[in-house]
C-alpha cells in the first residue's frame, strides 16, 4: 500500500466527473483539525481504499453539524448549521453517510430528518463490523493484537443515545484480542466527561474530573489498549492516561486505527 499514492476524492470532484459515490465519509471537525484524531481519519481512509469502496468526502465544504451548539442551548446556531449542511448534502444527492464521530452520527441520523435531511447514516464501528462480516478486513488470525488485553470505552452517543453496543465489540473480537470489560460498561457505561458540549468549556467545580474517574476504571482492567470510537472520548481518555503517567504502557486507540494496523495499513 505504501508505494502507491492514495488520494481522497471529494464530492465536488466526483460530481464534476459525473460520478456519485456509494458513501459519503463525514470527517467531522475533530477528524479534520485535531492532530490526534486526524490519524483516525487517515486510518479509516486507508481502510476505505483497501476495500475498494466508492466513497468521497466533502473536504472544505464540510462544516460543523451543530451538535455542540444545540447541546449548549443555541438552537438558532444549530439549525443554521443543519439547514446549510442539508442544502450541501442534498445538492450532491447524498444517500449514505459514514462517520467516525458519534456526535456527528447522532445529529445527522436523528436530528437532521426533522429539518428535511434524510440519509442513511452509519457510524464507522458498524461500518467496520459490516466489512468484517463480509470478510473484507480482519480475521487474519494471529495479527498484531492477538491475545492482547483491550478494553472498550462505550461512547454515550453511540451506546445509550443510539443503542450501538455490539458493533464496536465485534470489531475488537475480529482482532483476536482479549476483550476485558470495565466495571461500568454498555448501558451503564460512564461518560468520558466531554459530551453535551463539555468539550468546549471547563468542568464545573467538583472533587474530580470525569475522565480521571473513567481512566481509573479503564486502567483497573489491566488492559494495554483502551479502544474508543469517538474523538471526544479519545481526547479525554488520553488526557486521563497522561495524568496517570501511563502513556508509555497504555495506548488509547480508535477502532479504525486498530483495524488498519491489524491489516498492516
Amino acid at each position, binding site marked *: 500500500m505504501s508505494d502507491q499514492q492514495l488520494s481522497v476524492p471529494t464530492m465536488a470532484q466526483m460530481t464534476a466527473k459525473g460520478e456519485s459515490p456509494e458513501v459519503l465519509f463525514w470527517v467531522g471537525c475533530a477528524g*479534520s*483539525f485535531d492532530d490526534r484524531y486526524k490519524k483516525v481519519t487517515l486510518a479509516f481512509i486507508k481502510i476505505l481504499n483497501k476495500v475498494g469502496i466508492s466513497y468521497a468526502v466533502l473536504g472544505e465544504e*464540510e462544516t460543523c453539524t451543530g451538535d455542540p451548539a444545540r447541546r449548549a442551548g443555541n438552537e*438558532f*446556531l444549530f439549525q443554521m448549521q443543519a439547514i446549510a449542511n442539508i442544502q450541501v448534502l442534498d445538492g450532491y444527492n447524498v444517500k449514505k453517510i459514514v462517520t467516525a464521530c458519534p456526535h456527528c452520527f447522532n445529529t445527522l441520523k436523528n*436530528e437532521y430528518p426533522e*429539518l428535511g435531511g434524510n440519509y442513511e447514516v452509519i457510524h464507522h464501528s458498524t461500518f467496520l463490523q459490516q466489512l468484517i462480516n463480509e470478510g473484507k478486513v480482519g480475521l487474519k488470525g494471529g495479527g498484531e493484537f492477538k491475545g492482547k488485553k483491550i478494553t472498550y470505552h462505550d461512547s*454515550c452517543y453511540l451506546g445509550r443515545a443510539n443503542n450501538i453496543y455490539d458493533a464496536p465489540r465485534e470489531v475488537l473480537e475480529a482482532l483476536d484480542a482479549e476483550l476485558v470489560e470495565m466495571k461500568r460498561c454498555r448501558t451503564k457505561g460512564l461518560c468520558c466527561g466531554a*459530551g453535551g458540549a463539555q468539550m468546549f468549556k471547563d468542568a464545573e*467545580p467538583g472533587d474530580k474530573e470525569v475522565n480521571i474517574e473513567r481512566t481509573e476504571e479503564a486502567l483497573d482492567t489491566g488492559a494495554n489498549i483502551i479502544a474508543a470510537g469517538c474523538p471526544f472520548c479519545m481526547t479525554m481518555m488520553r488526557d486521563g492516561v497522561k495524568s496517570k503517567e501511563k502513556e508509555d504502557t497504555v495506548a488509547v486507540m480508535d477502532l479504525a486505527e486498530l483495524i488498519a494496523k491489524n491489516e498492516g495499513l
Partner: protein
Amino acid sequence: MEFLPQIAFLIIVATASFFLYKRITRIRMNIFLGKPSGRTDRTSERWKTMLLVAFGQQKMFKRIIPAFLHFLIYAGFLVINLEVLEFVIDGLAGTHRIFAPYLGDFYTVLINVFEFLAVAVLFSCFAFLIRRNVMKIKRFSGEEMRKWPTLDANLILVIEIILMFAILTMNATDMLIQGQDDHYAQTGTFFFSSFLIPLFEGMSVSTLIFVERFAWWFHIVGILGFAIYVTYSKHLHIAMAFPNTWYSNLEEKGKIENMPVVTNEVKMMLGMPAEGSNEPPAEIARFGAKDVNDLSWVNIMNAYSCTECGRCTSQCPANMTGKKLSPRKIMMATRDRAEEVGASLAKGGKGLEDGKSLLGDYITKEEINACTSCNACVEACPINIDPLSIILEMRRYVSMEESAAPASWNGMFQNIETSFSPWKFAPTDRFNWAEDLNKESK
C-alpha cells in the same frame, strides 16, 4: 342506631373521596401548567412500553435485590386491594365478610394468599427500612434528601407495616370470634395470622370484637388516609408510573427535540420558504425554559412521578465526581415549583408571577452547565423519567434568551459561526489532513 357504623363509614369514604378528588384536580392543573406535548403517536408502542416498564417492572430488574423486594410490595399492593372491595361493601352494607359464604373454601384460599402477600410486604418494608437507615445506601442520601424526603420515605414504609399488621390482627381475632358470634362467618383457618392468635387468646368475646373492629376500621381508614397522603408524597409513583411510561420518549435518546419556531426564523433568514411565513408572526413564546410553564406537561408529570430513588443521580457522571448536578434534584425542584405555583393560583395568588422561577430559585446554572448529556439518568430511571430534557430546555433559555451561556461556550458559538467549527481553525484548512495521507504511508 344500628346504622351508625354504616353512616360513619359512608361519611369517611365520602370525605376521603372529596379530598382525593380535590388533590387529583390540583395535581392535574399543576401538570397542565406545562406546554402541550405531541406524545400521542405510536399508541401500540406506548401501550407496550407501559405494560413492560410500569406493569412488568422491566427496568427495576437491573438491580435484582431491590427489584425482588419492590416486586413483593407491588404485587401485594395490587392483590390485597381486592380485599378492600369487600371492606367497602361490608362497610356500606353493614355485613361481615360478605364474600365468605359465596366463595366457601375458595375464600379461605384467597385470604390465605392475601395474608401471604401481606407477610411478603412486611418482609420487604422491614428490609427497605434497614437498607435506608442502617445500611446507609449512598443513593438515599444527598443534598436534596434532607428532612422531608427522608422522612417521607420512612413514613411510607412504617404506614405500610402498620396496615399489614392491622390485616393480620383482624384475621387472627376474627378466627377466635367465629363460632361465638353468629354475625361472624366461618372462614376456615388463615395460616399466617394464626401465629398471632396466642396474643389474643383468653380475651373476652367483647374485647376480641373490639380488637377486630378496631383493626378493620384502622385498616380501611388507614388506606383512605394513605391514599390522600400519597398525593403529597413521592409515593405518588404508584399511580403516575403508568401514564408516565405511556407518554415516555420513544425516540432515540440522543435526539434533542426540535424547535419548529426556530426553524421558521432560520429559514426566513436563509431566504428559504418557511411554513406559515405569510401569516403574521404569532406571539413568540419564550425560547427554552425559565419556569415550569415553559416546560412540556410531560416534564412536569415526570416530576410528579419521581420516587426519589436516586438511580439517576447515582449514575450521573457529574454527580459522582462531586459536581452540584443531581438529576433527582432537578425532578424534585420541578415538582416543588409546580406545587408552589399551583398552591398560589388556587388561593388567587400571583402564581408564576411571584418573582421567582424554576431556573435561578430552584435550579442553578452551575447544575445545568455540569450536564454531559450522557443519558445515564434517563437510562437509569425505572419509569422512564427524562431529567435531561429539562436541563436542555433551561440551557436553551440561558443561551438564547439571556445570552448568558458560559464564556467559553459563547466562544465556541462564535467559532462555529465564523469558522464553521467549534475550534478556531480556518475553514480553508479543513481538508489539509488529506495531505498527510501519503506523507504518513511512506
